[in-house]
């Protein structure tokens, strides 16, 4: 249904700033469990990058390491700034927004309050551009409601009482409110209806194209992810086993079998 | 390698003292223990141990008691009876003290006195005024020191009988052995006369304030307010009385809360005419400023306990109790535990300089209350003024019933 990103735009973007995010020798884990074992890859500014891999491969852990939720070794630079060793709040201030696995909504805040917390950084009280930012935030709120009309209906409801899919929409909406320069999506389609999943990837594409937001998306629905992604990496047991432009990955025999399957998920374009 | 068992009997005393216990005492030294709440909610009283320590250090510097240097081992029980038991046993079995001089508070004392009496360890001069300490025939190794609460109550009763024989009395009391003993003693002492208790209100030490109780008491319109409280609540009750201009009873504050340190925060102008009774010299009271013993005390405290406040009456209390023990040790016929036990129960009009003139230590075989004499005082200007004669409650009311 949707056109995969053409190679030419990808090349153009890549040459512009090929090492917007540069990951070199990244190791990360929990206590004694070493999960991510030496990752190297880079993402150009304005690129959408998909990470695929089986369960427990360390995809989530990689994203967590990028945003500072787990400690990592090695080097991760965003636009030249080292991210490792920073706390999540610091990386967020550098423009990294993370939609975590398990959503992490503020359950006793209402939907709208959740979204406002997402925009918290932009409306800091002592910022000089506070007022203009505030109108911008109001506009973004509308935008998110536009993306997910369900959220508008539920805007006064406590996030804890939302349905699973609604919470997922909220988590994504909250990350968008940050207007990030790097958006990390951990299985964003989790729990979303097919229609919404497809819309979601349209939104990702739109955000990426309109705002040149760089996106890393971890996704089990490889079909859709590869549709929007410019590049993709396959992670297994904490190591990259395959990297390349999405088109190539898609055509890789093994990937096609394991992640795309013979029969595609019905109702989903491809 | 069992360390269990008997106290060393090796340093046997000679002569008539043969076979008596000499644990903790030699020709050169004497080892005493004390148990106080240095931590926890009652730690305000912990400072008594400072007064005691200062006294012994002072005496040691002057050659000790009969040539013996005093070692005073203080243990903290946090005002918890099980802890007091543990510490008493530590003192007796590990520290091998000669006597457990002072345990503070009724619960702690009650928890350990069986043990100490069974072990035949003297427990002289406990720091509580409950009436059991002096009347119990089974615990001959234990004795009280301060006037028991009943004796104190009797002093107030006698005063009221003379001054206001038809008085209606409102009572504020702490809901524990101290408050109940004093209140009970008071009621017994006024029984049959024209004085009536018109209202009584209690409070718990955990209460934040006694203001509600004071409001209730004010409703009684009594002529006399008997204020049986510990210091903080004493101040609160005095302040509440002062604030209520519609009710102006004669305010009697019990001895524990009579220190100038309790009255001062209320404002001296608000406590004029308050009556109390006492038996030792209040270091915060300017009338004793030139008293020789008081000066010694102040100097000693400054030297040996520099971080505690000499004006705190509890330090003086400790000092006075320690000098009382000094007298008892002096009076021992044998330098043994038995010797101390007997000496404590055989004091005859012994003068102690920190006690008021006219107040002396007297005990007997059946009477383990050394001090049962108190003198009334009234607050005037910025100090207490003693009035009347010291009241010997034993003479006036007879011995306490068992």
């Amino acid at each position, binding site marked *: 249904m949707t056109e995969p990103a053409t190679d030419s735009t990808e090349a153009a973007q890549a040459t512009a700033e090929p090492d917007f995010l540069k990951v070199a020798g990244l190791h990360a884990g929990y206590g004694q469990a070493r999960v991510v074992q030496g990752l190297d890859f880079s993402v150009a500014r304005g690129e959408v990058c998909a990470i695929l891999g089986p369960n427990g491969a360390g995809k989530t852990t990689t994203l967590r390491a990028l945003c500072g939720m787990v400690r990592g070794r090695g080097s991760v630079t965003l636009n030249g700034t080292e991210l490792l060793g920073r706390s999540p709040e610091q990386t967020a201030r550098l423009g990294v927004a993370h939609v975590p696995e398990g959503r992490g*909504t*503020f359950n006793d805040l209402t939907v709208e*309050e959740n979204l406002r917390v997402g925009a918290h950084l932009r409306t800091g009280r002592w910022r000089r551009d506070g007022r203009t930012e505030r109108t911008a935030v109001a506009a973004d709120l509308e935008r998110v409601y536009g993306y997910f009309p369900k959220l508008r209906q539920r805007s006064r409801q406590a996030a804890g009482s939302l349905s699973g899919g609604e919470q997922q929409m909220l988590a994504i909406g909250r990350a968008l409110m940050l207007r990030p320069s790097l958006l990390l999506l951990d299985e964003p389609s989790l729990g979303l209806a097919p229609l919404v999943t497809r819309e979601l990837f349209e939104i990702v594409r739109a955000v990426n194209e309109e705002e040149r937001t760089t996106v890393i998306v971890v996704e089990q629905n490889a079909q859709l992810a590869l549709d929007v992604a410019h590049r993709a990496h396959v992670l297994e047991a904490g190591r990259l086993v395959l990297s390349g432009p999405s088109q190539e990955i898609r055509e890789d025999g093994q990937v096609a079998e394991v992640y795309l399957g013979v029969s595609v998920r019905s109702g989903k374009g491809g | 390698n069992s360390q269990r068992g008997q106290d060393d009997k090796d340093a046997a005393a000679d002569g008539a003292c043969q076979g008596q216990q000499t644990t903790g005492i030699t020709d050169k030294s004497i080892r005493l223990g004390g148990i106080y709440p240095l931590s926890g909610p009652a730690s305000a009283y912990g400072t008594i141990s400072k007064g005691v320590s200062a006294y012994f250090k002072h005496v040691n510097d002057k050659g000790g008691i009969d040539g013996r240097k005093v070692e005073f081992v203080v243990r903290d029980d946090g005002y918890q009876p099980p802890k007091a038991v543990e510490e008493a046993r530590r003192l007796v079995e590990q520290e091998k003290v000669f006597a457990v001089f002072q345990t503070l508070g009724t619960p702690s004392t009650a928890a350990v006195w069986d043990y100490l009496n069974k072990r035949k360890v003297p427990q002289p001069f406990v720091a509580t005024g409950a009436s059991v300490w002096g009347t119990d025939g089974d615990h001959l190794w234990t004795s009280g020191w301060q006037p028991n609460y009943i004796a104190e109550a009797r002093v107030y009763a006698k005063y009221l009988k003379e001054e206001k024989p038809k008085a209606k009395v409102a009572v504020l009391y702490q809901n524990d052995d101290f408050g109940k003993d004093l209140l009970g003693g008071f009621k017994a002492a006024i029984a049959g006369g024209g004085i009536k208790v018109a209202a009584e209100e209690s409070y718990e030490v955990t209460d934040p304030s006694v203001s509600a*109780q004071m*409001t209730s008491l004010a409703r009684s319109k009594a002529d006399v307010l008997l204020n049986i409280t510990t210091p903080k609540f004493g101040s609160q009750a005095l*302040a509440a009385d002062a604030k209520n201009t519609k009710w102006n009873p004669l305010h009697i504050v019990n001895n524990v809360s009579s220190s100038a340190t309790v009255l001062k*925060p209320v404002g001296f102008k608000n406590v004029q005419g308050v009556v109390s009774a006492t038996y030792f010299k209040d270091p915060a009271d300017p009338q004793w400023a030139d008293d020789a013993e008081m000066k010694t005390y102040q100097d000693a405290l400054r030297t040996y306990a520099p971080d505690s406040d000499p004006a705190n009456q509890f330090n003086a209390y400790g000092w006075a109790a320690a000098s009382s023990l000094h007298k008892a040790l002096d009076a021992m016929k044998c330098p043994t535990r038995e010797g101390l036990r007997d000496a404590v129960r055989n004091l005859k009009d012994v003068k102690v300089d920190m006690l008021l003139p006219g107040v002396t230590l007297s005990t007997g075989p059946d009477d383990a209350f050394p001090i049962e004499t108190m003198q009334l005082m009234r607050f005037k200007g910025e100090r207490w003024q003693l009035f009347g004669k010291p009241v010997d409650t034993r003479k006036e009311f007879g011995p306490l019933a068992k």
Partner: protein
Amino acid sequence: MSAVTELLQQVVEGVGSGAVYASLALALVLIHRFTGIVNFAQGELAMISTYVAWQLVASGMSFWLALPVTLAVSFAGGMLVERIVIRPVQNAPELTMVIVTVGLFIFVNAMAGLIWSFTVKDFPQPFPDGGIDLGGVRVDWSSLGIIAVVAVVMSLLYVLFQHTSVGLVMRAVAGNPASARLSGIRVGRVLMLGWGLAATVGAVSGVLVAPVLFLEPNMMGGVLIYAFAAATLGGFDSPVGAVVGGLLVGVAETLAGAYVDVIGADLKVGVPLVIILAVLLVRPQGLFGRAAVERA
């Protein structure tokens, strides 16, 4: 005095002590809103603040100068406490944090005794002596003063919670610190702010009650218990609840102690217990608390 005025007098008395409980309960609510725990050391921190004020006044500073200085010192002190004592166990189970505050309670209490001794200190009364007479019911200026200040603090907290972005951020942090971090909220600073504010509110409470209760290291111990009761009754989330809870506890306890003979002054602490139990059985989240959102 008629029975009615007597009753009213007791009610006034109860409101007076209820306001005292409420003042500390406000600080407890504040901490709970920020961190989700109960702070056993809250009363002791208030007590230390009061000693600071006392020390300043004793060294010759005027009360009205000493007050803002004390509040500032308390704010800084509260932040410091968070940074030094609470931060290291921030990721530990909540009970661990609670026990740390118990340790802090013991420490602070003993420290105050060490520094200032246990003798009762007088504390300057910010409000005029005496009171007004309303048809035979006497109301002290000091009680009125306390009530007024408590009302002001309550309103400020209400506005803070409901109508500022700080309030929103604070709730986000208490609800889900990990996600708050991801939104760029400096959780550490927010928590420091919370402890600082709570210490300041506590200081206000201490300074208010010290002239009435008299200053000594155990001054706030009893108040803390009643403040707990007040906050529990009102719902641990709501400043309004804390105040209403405090007043209810104060009045109920005073009236029961004065009028119900079987209860008497000794058992009157049982009255708030019964009320709390009764209220919580009907509304487990307290009078003004918000019910937990629960979904399977």
